[in-house]
C-alpha cells in the first residue's frame, strides 16, 4: 500500500518558505489572518453569506480534526462521522433531556467520543491500511443502525432542539454572528492543538508510525498507544464539531449526523488542502464548500442533478491533477522556483567560470 503521503512539514515553512529567521513576519501574517477572520461578520451582513462562512469554518474544523489521525498518523479513518454523531447526540440529549448547559454538554460529547474512540481504536488498530479504513466504516455504520433504532435518542425521527430558548447558555441564537464566532473559536482551538502536536514529539511519532511502523517500534514507540492518542484527540474535536452542528441546525437525525458520506467529506477536505499539513484542511474546506455551494446555487434548480455532475467532475479533476492537494501544489511551486533560481545561479557561475577559464587561457 502506498501511504507515503507527501508531507509539508509545517505551516511555518509555508508562510515563510525560505526564511527561518523571519518568524516575526509569520506572526504578523497570522494575526492579520485572524483579525480578518474576526471582522467577517461585521463586514459581511448578509446572513446567507455568513452562513457560507460558518459552513467553511465548520468543514475546516472537521478536516483539521480528521487530519490529526488520518493525515499525521496515517490511520485513514473513514468512519469519523461516528464521533460527529456521538457528539451531536450526546450534547443534544444532555441539553434537552437533562437541561445541561450547552457548553458543558458539548464538552461531555467530546469526552464521550474520545472514550469510545479508545475502545474502537483498541480493536481496530491491529488492522492495516484499507482494512482499517473499512473497519471504521463498519463501526460507523453499526453506530448509525443503533441510533436509528434507539427510542430514547429519537430513533429515526431524530431530535429537535428548542429553537425558542435562545441565549449563550443554550448556545442557540437567531443571529448568525455568534455561531460564526463559536465556529471560528473552535477552529482556532483545534488548529492550536494541532500545531502543538505537530511541533512536539507527538507529531514526529505520528509521522514515524505512518512511514514505518515496524521501525518505530524499535525506537520504543508503543504503536497502539500513540495511534490511540491521535484517534482520541481527533475524535474529541470531531465530536465537538458535531455538537456545534446540532446547536446550529437545531435538528439532528441519523441521516444527517451519522451519514457515511460525511466521513468521506472530512477526509476530502484534508486531501484537497494537503494531507498532514496544518493549514491544508482549512484551505480545502474553503475550496470544497465554495464548489459545493456554488454549483448548487447555480445549477441546483435544474432538477437534473447538474450541480452534482459538475461538483463530482471538479473533484475528479482536482484529485487527478493535484494529488497532493493545494498545499502540495504550493510546496511544489516554491520548490520549483527555488530549483530554477539555483539553476540560474549555477548557470551564471558556469559562464563566469568558463569565462575565467578562457581568460586564463
Amino acid at each position, binding site marked *: 500500500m502506498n501511504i507515503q503521503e507527501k508531507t509539508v512539514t509545517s505551516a511555518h515553512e509555508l508562510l515563510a518558505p525560505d526564511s527561518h529567521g523571519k518568524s516575526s513576519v509569520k506572526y504578523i501574517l497570522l494575526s492579520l489572518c485572524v483579525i480578518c477572520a474576526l471582522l467577517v461578520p461585521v463586514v459581511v451582513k448578509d446572513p446567507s453569506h455568513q452562513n457560507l462562512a460558518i459552513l467553511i469554518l465548520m468543514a475546516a474544523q472537521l478536516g483539521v480534526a480528521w487530519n490529526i489521525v488520518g493525515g499525521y498518523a496515517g490511520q485513514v479513518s473513514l468512519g469519523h462521522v461516528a464521533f460527529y454523531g456521538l457528539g451531536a447526540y450526546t450534547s443534544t440529549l444532555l441539553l434537552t433531556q437533562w437541561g445541561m448547559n450547552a457548553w458543558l454538554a458539548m464538552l461531555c460529547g467530546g469526552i464521550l467520543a474520545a472514550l469510545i474512540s479508545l475502545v474502537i481504536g483498541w480493536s481496530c488498530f491491529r488492522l492495516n491500511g484499507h482494512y482499517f479504513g473499512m473497519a471504521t466504516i463498519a463501526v460507523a455504520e453499526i453506530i448509525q443502525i443503533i441510533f436509528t433504532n434507539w427510542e430514547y435518542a429519537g430513533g429515526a425521527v431524530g431530535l429537535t432542539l428548542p429553537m425558542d430558548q435562545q441565549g449563550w447558555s443554550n448556545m442557540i441564537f437567531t443571529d448568525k454572528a455568534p455561531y460564526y464566532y463559536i465556529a471560528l473559536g473552535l477552529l482556532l482551538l483545534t488548529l492550536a492543538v494541532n500545531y502543538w502536536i505537530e511541533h512536539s514529539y507527538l507529531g514526529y511519532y505520528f509521522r514515524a508510525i505512518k512511514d514505518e511502523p515496524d521501525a*518505530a517500534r524499535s525506537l520504543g514507540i508503543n504503536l497502539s498507544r500513540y495511534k490511540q492518542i491521535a484517534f482520541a484527540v481527533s475524535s474529541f474535536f470531531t465530536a465537538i464539531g458535531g455538537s456545534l452542528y446540532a446547536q446550529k441546525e437545531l435538528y439532528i437525525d441519523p441521516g444527517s449526523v451519522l451519514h457515511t458520506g460525511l466521513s468521506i467529506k472530512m477526509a476530502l477536505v484534508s486531501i484537497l488542502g494537503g494531507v498532514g499539513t496544518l493549514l491544508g484542511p482549512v484551505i480545502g474546506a474553503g475550496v470544497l464548500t465554495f464548489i459545493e455551494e456554488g454549483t448548487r446555487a447555480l445549477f441546483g434548480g435544474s432538477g437534473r442533478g447538474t450541480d452534482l455532475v459538475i461538483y463530482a467532475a471538479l473533484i475528479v479533476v482536482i484529485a487527478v491533477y493535484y494529488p497532493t492537494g493545494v498545499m502540495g501544489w504550493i510546496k511544489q511551486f516554491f520548490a520549483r522556483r527555488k530549483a530554477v533560481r539555483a539553476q540560474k545561479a549555477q548557470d551564471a557561475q558556469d559562464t563566469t567560470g568558463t569565462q575565467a577559464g578562457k581568460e586564463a587561457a
Partner: protein
Amino acid sequence: MSLLRVESVSKRFGGITANQDVSFEVGAGKIVGLIGPNGAGKTTMFNCIAGYAPPTTGEIWMNDIKVSGMSPEQCARAGIGRTFQVARTFTSMTALENVMVGAFLINKNVADARQSAAKLLSFVNLGQFKDKPAGSMTISEQRRLAVARALAVRPRLLLMDEVMAGLNPTEVKETVDVVLKIREEGISCLIVEHVLEGIMPIADAIVVLDYGKKIAEGSPEQVSNDPKVIAAYLGDE
C-alpha cells in the same frame, strides 16, 4: 559480566527451523560478530532478541531482565537498539528528523532532541545530509542513518544487520571506525555481517551459525581456522 545472554533459543516457522538451541553471550562493551551462511538464522536471531519474533523455546536476558517475550518497544526501552536488513527509514522525514524520533525516547523536548540527533548524524558521517529527505538517500546511506537512529535511543546493546553490505573497502573502513567509536561509548555491538573485512579485525568474539545451529564460537582467529566454519561459510581461499 555479560550484558546479553541467549539461552538455548529455538525458533521455528511452520516446518522450518531457523534457530535451534542457540546459546551465546555478549559482554558489556564488546563487539560480537554473528556470522553464517545465507539462511543460517542470523536475522531471525536478531528478531528474537529485539522482540519482533519471540523464540519458540529458550530465554533471552539483558542483565537481569528477561527480554524474550517482550514487545519490540519494551525491548527498546530495556536497552536494545537495532537496525534492519531492509533499511526501513522514515521516508517522508529528513535524516535529522529520523534520528530525532529515536531521541525522543530519552527526552521529549524537541530542541534537545534536535541537538543530540545532529550530533549523532555527524557521528556516523552523515552530517551533510541533515536536511535531506531520507527517501532520497541511497540504500547504504539509509543503513548508516538507521545506525544513528538506533543509537539515539541510547541502547546498551546495538544490533546491526549487514550495515556494511554494498560498501566498497574504503567505505567499509570508515564504517568500522564508526563501530569502534560506538564501542568506546560503552555500547555493546552484535553484528551480522558477510563483509568479513568489516567484522573480523574488530570483533572480540564471533559466533557462527549454520542451519540454525551454533557450530563455532571464539576469537576471530580461532573461528577462521575452524575447519567446520571454513567448510560451511568461508570456503577455502
